[in-house]
């Protein structure tokens, strides 16, 4: 291919309509040409910890028994006054802007798409679990069935066909808002703007710039929680390895 531009008069006249049309396109439309950047906003005040998202995700993505891409961690929080309330933390992959899982992968199986979704190339993954170690959010795991690294994909197979992720679709309280943050007219962009200064991300000190935002998230739930765990009530893996 010739690297030099064609400077002939014929070529200039041929391209003139393109230049003039480009000048006529509104700024918003130019922004659209950047393409979408998918993100999620979780309004914890609307979450009732019903785990419909957990089940919806597991069914949609055919996860083996005991593996979860998303789950709603539920906490009993007792105030100094002796009142006990419920707090929740819906957990999933944060699709970070600076994902620590990508550089550690020895075979380059983990990558970030232009639309912001972090994915695993299942054909390349060797199941070394280095990405599982590097993720600050325990969002990754080794799928017992496939023996490969697994995580939330924002249901990329659904969003590519114009559908919402399964967890968003099944959320009965409308706590999960998913959309394109490059487009100011989307629900998520409007909600993020309305809640400016009141949204949070998990472990901001990790410097990963998550693209899953939270409203109503309590400080002490944003990382490792210094509290008791009702282990006898919890699911635990009954087997290890693939």
């Amino acid at each position, binding site marked *: 291919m010739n690297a030099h531009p064609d400077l002939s008069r014929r070529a200039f006249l041929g391209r003139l309509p393109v230049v003039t049309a480009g000048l006529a396109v509104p700024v918003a439309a130019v922004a659209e040409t950047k393409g979408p950047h998918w993100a999620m906003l979780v309004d914890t005040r609307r979450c009732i*910890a019903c785990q419909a998202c957990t089940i919806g995700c597991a069914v949609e993505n055919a996860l083996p028994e005991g593996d*979860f891409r998303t*789950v*709603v*961690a*539920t*906490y*009993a*929080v*007792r*105030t*100094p006054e002796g009142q006990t309330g419920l*707090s929740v*933390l819906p*957990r999933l992959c944060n699709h970070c802007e600076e994902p620590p899982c990508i*550089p*550690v*992968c*020895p*075979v*380059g*199986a983990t990558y970030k798409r232009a639309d912001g979704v972090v994915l695993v190339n299942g054909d*390349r993954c*060797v*199941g*070394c*679990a*280095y990405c*599982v*170690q*590097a*993720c*600050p*959010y*325990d969002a*990754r*795991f*080794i799928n017992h069935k496939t*023996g*490969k690294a697994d995580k939330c994909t924002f249901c990329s197979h659904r969003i590519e066909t114009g559908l919402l992720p399964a967890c968003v679709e099944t959320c009965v309280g409308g706590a999960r808002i998913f959309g394109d943050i490059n487009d100011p007219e989307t629900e998520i962009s409007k909600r993020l703007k309305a809640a400016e200064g009141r949204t949070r991300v998990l*472990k901001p000190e*990790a410097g990963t710039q998550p693209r899953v935002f939270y409203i109503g998230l309590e400080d*002490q739930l944003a*990382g*490792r*929680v*210094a*509290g*008791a*765990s*009702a*282990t006898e*009530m*919890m699911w*635990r*893996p009954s*087997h*290890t*390895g*693939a």
Partner: protein
Amino acid sequence: MNTTAITEVLGFAREPGWLPWAVQYFFLIGISTMAFFLSLPGLLWQRAGWQDLARHALLAALVCGLAAPVALLADLHQPGRFLNFYLHTNFGSWMGWGAYFIPLYVVGLLAYTWSVLRANRAGLVFAALVAGVGAVLVLVYTGMETMIVAARPLWHSFLIPVFFAATALAGAFGMTAMFEALAGRREAKVLNGGLHFSQWAVLLVIAAWLVMALGGAAPYREALATIHGGWVAAWIWFIVSVAVTLWLARGASLLIPALFALHGAWLARWLVFMGGQSVPKLGSTHTAQTLSLTPDSLLGIIGTAGLCLFIYIVLTSLVRWDDSAHA
């Protein structure tokens, strides 16, 4: 909300991504590289006092060096895809580099062994150089790939590679001493001296880590705070066992301090890898670490030991490793 107590009533714990196979790999490859270095004074530089033990140090390097890659392969959840390490290498990953350092070291070690057995002096120097470079690179990459994991506070310390190296050196002295004892040797001065040096180094690293943690350095303080339950007792036992090894190595006995040193080198990696992975990154549910009779657990550990025994039997059947006249 100003809270007094939080209880996670519904949550989950991720199971360890790196299985006990990883502990076996780091244990074996560390001992192998350090045992290779122990063989150099006697075999390459012909230093008096080291020649008797040099061949058993080489035997230890071979036994562990040949078994280690098998354990590493078993730790992959898709071992059949190991070729992807070479077909799609990400050179930004320490593990990606490791895929090249391991064969460099093992091939160098085999060439070094061949040169020793064939008394090929010119080849010996070159092979020792290749294996030496490979061994250093293996020690560096195994330490670095653990150290850079910021998500695990216990691992995210520049002291981790030093800790691995110090405990590997203790394990190398231990395994060499064990092979010497099995061959009926009684000379313990150099080996027990080495055990003293390496165990003091281990204690020094732990002391430095504790000073950082108690001094308030962020990842160290967090790591100390997350050591919980039975892992506290295990760490205390580890430190006690190092002290016991030091005490035992004062005498003329070869085998008992050697076994304690090997136990310490293995336990150090179990504490770092399995203990480190038991701590949740979010929430408060710890991973319950249990050993079961499955290939990914107890059978894997026993199987690796069996593989080492098999390699030892094969090598000692084919070669006279206690023949110091040819050292």
